[in-house]
């Protein structure tokens, strides 16, 4: 159905015309219409002006020395991913062994209760803070402040 301006093709062809992406027949239809339609000519000129402004823009980009010299490899990331849990497990085992040794050498019940209470308290506080941090990390708006 023709538009009020007499256009008989989809308006999207104007974009295709600006992008030189039309087949010859469609391009010819648009060209003929534009010769007698000031409104569609204005649309095409607007599209061209915005495209020209967009494509001629330059942005600040990071300097070469701000990029890691070589891309991180999958193997590297895998090794780091395996290494951290191993280090954490080693730390936990070492701490557990030390506690066990202290427990064995302490015979007084009060000293044992002080030891277990203190360690349990610190562990609960640490786990509580860790869980909060992990939960808020993805949406923390101040995450980048230190950068």
């Amino acid at each position, binding site marked *: 159905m023709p538009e009020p301006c007499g256009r008989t093709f989809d308006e*999207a062809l104007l*974009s*295709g015309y600006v992008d030189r992406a039309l087949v010859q027949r469609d391009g010819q239809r648009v060209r003929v219409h534009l010769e007698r339609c000031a409104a569609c000519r204005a649309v095409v000129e*607007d599209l061209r002006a915005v*495209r020209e402004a*967009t494509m001629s823009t330059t942005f600040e980009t990071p300097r*070469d020395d701000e990029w890691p010299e070589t891309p991180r*490899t999958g193997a590297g990331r895998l090794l780091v991913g395996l290494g951290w849990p191993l280090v954490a497990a080693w730390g936990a085992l070492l701490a557990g062994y030390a506690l066990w040794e202290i427990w064995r050498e302490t015979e007084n019940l009060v000293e044992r209760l002080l030891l277990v209470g203190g360690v349990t308290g610190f562990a609960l506080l640490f786990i509580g803070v860790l869980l909060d941090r992990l939960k808020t990390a993805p949406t923390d708006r101040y995450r980048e402040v230190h950068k």
Partner: protein
Amino acid sequence: MVDSAAPPLVAGDDESDSRLVDRAKAGEAAACDALARRHRRAAYLLALQMVGNRDDAMDVTQDAMLRFFTTLQSFDAARRVRPWLFTIVRNQVRDFWRRRQRRPADAIGESDALVGQLAAPQASPEADLHRRELKERVWRALAALPAEKREIIVLRDFHDLSYSDLAQVLGIPIGTVMSRLHGARRRLRAQLEEEGGRHA
């Protein structure tokens, strides 16, 4: 455009992408470096235009480049690298939004942050000033658009992707590219008119 900000030629820059991909697949670190140097700026610019600030764009780009190299073995060297890399960047941007609990329909919050990344002009005669103002208006309006409208305009008008490349990157049939692009451009024109009225 992207190439105007390209770094000086380095080893490997005169080789075709497909040859570099073949060498990188064979494990040559120099070929990986050459590919990274050739394409990371364009990847960064797309990420910047989608997430709106430098730090997040750097993170997204580094994740995208990592993904690019870890999936290189499955990439057909006869295909073009840039659309494939842009597909990866687009997916990384979506992952980034998911982590930040944002939706593709959201505009970039700090639209002036993107405009703040425009390179400073070399000189400022009056004509350049007018052009600069137009660019700032356009990028401010683009930042205010929903991401799916902004990405198709940016990919076509800034990164100069063909319609078939657009279809590949956006995962849509090539027959719908023109209408979707025009819909986005109409929305951009409306946004520019709205912003013009607001600043008048």
